[in-house]
């Protein structure tokens, strides 16, 4: 019997569906999809409740505070909440809900988690500097044919390809 949890959509099918979804998103909102912006707004909100004065004085974080609108009342925040629900739905239908640390058998869980933390940290910094991550800057940026989207895509994937050699032990 084949393992149901390993059955994924054909990537071209998934790509066309998300492409159509992006088209719909552009048609309705005039903008594409995103992800890192939601994390940024969450960080700004958390900092604003812990250290309000510090956050208001911060050159970067104060850009995302306004008197009219709460930073959590934001398109990307709701979109990412939806992503969590949609991914959970897909995972539960396919029987993939499971608490685990996924890693190559050649490395320990601990090593995987240390690298996951470092990777997330770098992605956090890079997505702010690059004004968006793989979803918002690269994918949606490419779909809208912005030069920025293509620079972002080539820079993210180019670097990862070049650096892949040095981290191969973690994956293969």
């Amino acid at each position, binding site marked *: 019997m084949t393992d149901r949890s390993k059955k994924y959509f054909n990537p071209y099918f998934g790509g066309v569906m998300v492409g159509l979804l992006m088209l719909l998103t552009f048609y309705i909102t*005039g903008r594409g999809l995103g992800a890192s912006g939601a994390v940024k707004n969450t960080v700004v909100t958390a900092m604003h409740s812990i250290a309000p004065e510090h956050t208001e004085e911060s050159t970067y974080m104060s850009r995302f505070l306004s008197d009219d609108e709460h930073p959590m009342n934001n398109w990307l925040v709701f979109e990412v909440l*939806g992503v969590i629900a949609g991914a959970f739905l897909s995972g*539960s239908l396919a029987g993939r809900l499971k608490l685990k640390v996924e890693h190559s058998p050649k490395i320990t869980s601990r090593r995987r988690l240390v690298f*996951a933390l470092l*990777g997330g940290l770098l992605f956090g910094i890079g997505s702010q500097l690059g004004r968006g*991550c793989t979803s918002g800057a690269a994918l949606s940026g490419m779909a809208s044919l*912005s030069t920025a989207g293509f620079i972002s895509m080539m820079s993210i994937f180019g670097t990862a390809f070049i650096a*892949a050699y040095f981290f191969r032990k973690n994956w293969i």
Partner: protein
Amino acid sequence: MGPLIPQGIISGEWNNVFALLIGVVFGFFLEGSGFSSSRKLAGVFYGYDFIVLKFFFTAAITAAVGMIYFGYVGWIDLDMIYVNQSYVSSLIIGGVIMGLGFIMGGFCPGTSVCGAAIGKIDAWVFTGGMFIGIFIFSEAFPLFEGLYNSDNLGSIKIYESLGISRAFFVFALILVALGMFYVTGIIQKKVKKVEY
């Protein structure tokens, strides 16, 4: 004529409702295509699984072709579509930092949310790392500020940068993508299978 909300055809109050629904579909297809698995994602960098490349280019092309069509039949005003600003230096350096994060962490922000939703503890840790990274960036912003605001070429489009028409560029992009799909298919057959 679209885009509906910027044109005022649908009230902005609906924005978050659409955001949630669009997010559900996005998350469903990301997870369903295998984007919740870091080992599947990393396959593209070692040649054992090209799902990222296939999915990424198919999605971008589908949306780009759809927009040309929508523009042609007059369903959407293409000039009202948001185009990311090209701050060249910060895009490149930010991208390099993200690329390193990708190969070390095995996720990007959207995919880590998918992994986290189905119980991948490494995805939780990656997401936690993002919060810390964004906090560090915010606190250290004075250091980055010069770079962050430098070299802005404005909201330029790739086909304008290359001096060709929108349709011709998208056609060329499709040919490049088909070429890549073909070549990666050959590579994947030659590379040793990785079980995950």
